[in-house]
């Protein structure tokens, strides 16, 4: 049941042959080799497979690949700078030691991209709620919260400086 779809993946227009029964996570991992997209539960519970579709974070394991036709998809691979530099959000995760085994990290970073991209500032409790769709078995979440908070504040300050 093959079908050709067209979408923009990490800024690049992409034509990809999919099976209509596969999930977006299947397509990104197996066809496009974007293995930052992890599969933890495959039923929408853990958030490891989170990617952005048209700027909104979704669990790509419960999103059919076919639905990505005509959409913009962003994964962690798409965050790197022109010379392979880490994005400020990834840097914040390193500064705050928010990564242990790293399995949950790409998914949380993609949620952080959506959160930071809103350009708003959030309280710690609001950030807790905004990353509540992710499970982490290692860190105990505190350093992850610190990292997201740091990234949010840095982006907010950057935007404030830009205002006249």
């Amino acid at each position, binding site marked *: 049941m093959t079908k050709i779809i067209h979408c923009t993946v990490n800024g690049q227009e992409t034509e990809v042959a999919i099976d209509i*029964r596969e999930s977006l996570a299947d397509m990104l991992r197996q066809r496009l080799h974007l293995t930052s997209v992890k599969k933890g539960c495959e039923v929408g519970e853990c958030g490891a497979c989170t990617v952005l579709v048209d700027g909104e974070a979704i669990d790509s394991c*419960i999103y059919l690949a076919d639905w990505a036709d005509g959409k913009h998809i962003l994964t962690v691979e798409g965050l790197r700078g022109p010379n392979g530099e880490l994005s400020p959000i990834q840097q914040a995760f390193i500064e705050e030691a928010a990564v242990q085994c790293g399995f949950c990290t790409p998914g949380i970073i993609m949620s952080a991209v959506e959160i930071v991209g809103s350009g708003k500032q959030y309280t710690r409790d609001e950030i807790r709620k905004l990353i509540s769709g992710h499970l982490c078995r290692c860190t105990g979440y505190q350093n992850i919260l610190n990292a997201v908070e740091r990234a949010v504040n840095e982006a907010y300050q950057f935007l404030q400086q830009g205002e006249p």
Partner: protein
Amino acid sequence: MYDIEKIYDAVSLDDAIRARVEDPEAVIIAGGSDVLIKIREGKLAGCRLIGIRAIKELEGISMDGDGCIHIRPLTTFSHITFHPLIREHLPVLGYAVDQVGGPQIRNIGTIGGNVCNGVTSADSASTLFAYNAVLELTGPDGKRTLPIAEFYTGPGHVGLGPAELLTDIMIAKKDYDGFGGHYIKYAQRNAMDIATLGCSAICRLNASKNTIEDLRLAFGVAGPIPMRCHKAEEAARGQLISPQLLEQIALTAESEVNPRTSWRASREFRLQLVRELSQRACKQAIIHAGGADL
């Protein structure tokens, strides 16, 4: 890979209805956050699907000339919560659907899927009951409307006729204008868990804000389907606001509900939650309706 026999993507509402007439066994898929899980679990393995995501007329929120708010079934939870019409006129609904799962689920799940799935724990349901939502169903014989209370017929069962689709959720001005309300979801965790009990209360007060003119009290998981507590509402109508009144509302509500024991909680605990949450929700609803904090 999902175990799906076939997916047909409907291009219009008529096309979706035609596809259902041709294949009555095929399952409608909207956001997929219930259907895909059931396919993974095996309950719907090997099914044929009819996709409705491309039907743009089934998406979005608007207000008509009479002030009636129309929420189309494909609108996702996050789009409902942040929509200006919802924030201004139906804040309790916006808040209630912001309690569903987690952020990624709220970007995928639709209100139509939540209602049509037919489960008592659906976070949108009790608030839609409180606002007297009316559903528009469209099938081969055209459109009909049904109050939401008549749509839920049993656990997992709703009143969708053969080849019918839910096409609109309507809330009339008289059912939201001047009301203030509150929803409380009681669950084992603050996120990514379905409700052990859900309680939605909306009320309208008199001009001096010391008497309840109208109260709507609705619950999820207090019975096999979402429900209103009409006797408790009647007991509150025209009464002076007092802690004793809240207690009376709670005890009357407890006498009307019929929760069951499940692995999440016992019947007794759910009854206690009905008593406690109805008081807390009413107290907050009164404040949102302009009354004093008791």
